């Protein structure tokens, strides 16, 4: 099925993004800040294939990247952030008024928020929310950057063109 092949391509791309990110030293002295490169791919999958497939890309990427490049503990928090982020992105995309950058920014913020919420729940400590503003702003900034990249790609490879490729006989 063409969908499976396309999905696999997106997943592979997302994993490469995660790998590159694991190589970059992105430590700012504050936990939880990351670039979120793989979200470019999730966004593209969202616009090209739809929410169902994009969710598959996101979840599978988190699981596989966690096993390959990260550690088991991080998967729990990545999933929490990733799912919350995905929900926000789908919601924002549904409001047809907002473009990719807004969707991505919301995703970035929600991802960090989801992670603090899970972390605070696990260690049963609400003081972690002290970092909420920094993570909020960091998520917004990275969201804008990631969204800009996704936007430029979508502008050059319009969704309609990708869909006509899909409709062609395999």
């Amino acid at each position, binding site marked *: 099925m063409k969908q499976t092949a396309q999905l696999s391509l997106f997943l592979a791309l997302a994993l490469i993004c995660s790998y590159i990110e694991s190589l970059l030293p992105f430590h700012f*002295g504050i936990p939880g800040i990351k670039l979120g490169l793989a979200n470019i791919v999730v966004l593209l999958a969202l616009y090209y294939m739809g929410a169902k497939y994009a969710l598959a890309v996101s979840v599978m990427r988190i699981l596989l990247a966690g096993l390959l490049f*990260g550690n088991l*503990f991080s998967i729990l928090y990545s999933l929490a952030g990733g799912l919350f982020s995905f929900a926000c992105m789908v919601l924002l995309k549904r409001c047809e008024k*907002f*473009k990719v950058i807004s969707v991505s*920014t919301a995703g970035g913020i929600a991802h960090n928020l989801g992670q603090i919420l899970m972390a605070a729940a*696990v260690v049963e400590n609400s003081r972690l929310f*002290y970092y909420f*503003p920094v993570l909020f702003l960091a998520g917004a900034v990275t969201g804008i950057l990631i969204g800009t990249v996704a936007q430029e790609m979508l502008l050059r490879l319009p969704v*309609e063109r990708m869909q006509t490729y899909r409709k062609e006989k395999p």
Partner: protein
Amino acid sequence: MNKSRSAQRRLAKADLVLLAVLLLFGVLAFFAVRMLTQKNGTDVEVLLHGEIYGTYPLSEEQKIPIHQNGTVTNTLQIADGTVKMIQADCPDKLCVHQNAIAGQGETIVCLPNQVVVQILGTKEPGLDSISR
């Protein structure tokens, strides 16, 4: 057809408004939290799995090894009135890379080992006096 195309265009007014609101909110939240936490911490409290492991004064320079399951999983160092995690056996070492903390409300957390280091103070955060 037009509607789906427009969703991929560059920014429109709705987006700029949303982004401005979000950034404003973030900045306000930042200063709000900043005001509510003060650099007048007096003690360091270490929590393990949500339960108090020990309390140590910020004024005393010392190294604190945190024992779990028979090994030292994390090591804290109190020096110059600040606390820093200098060793951890967790895979990501995010806690070790974190900046030293000294103010109320600040924390150092090692999620894999479930260690939370927080600052306690004598003053109520955010208030200097309560008038009745």
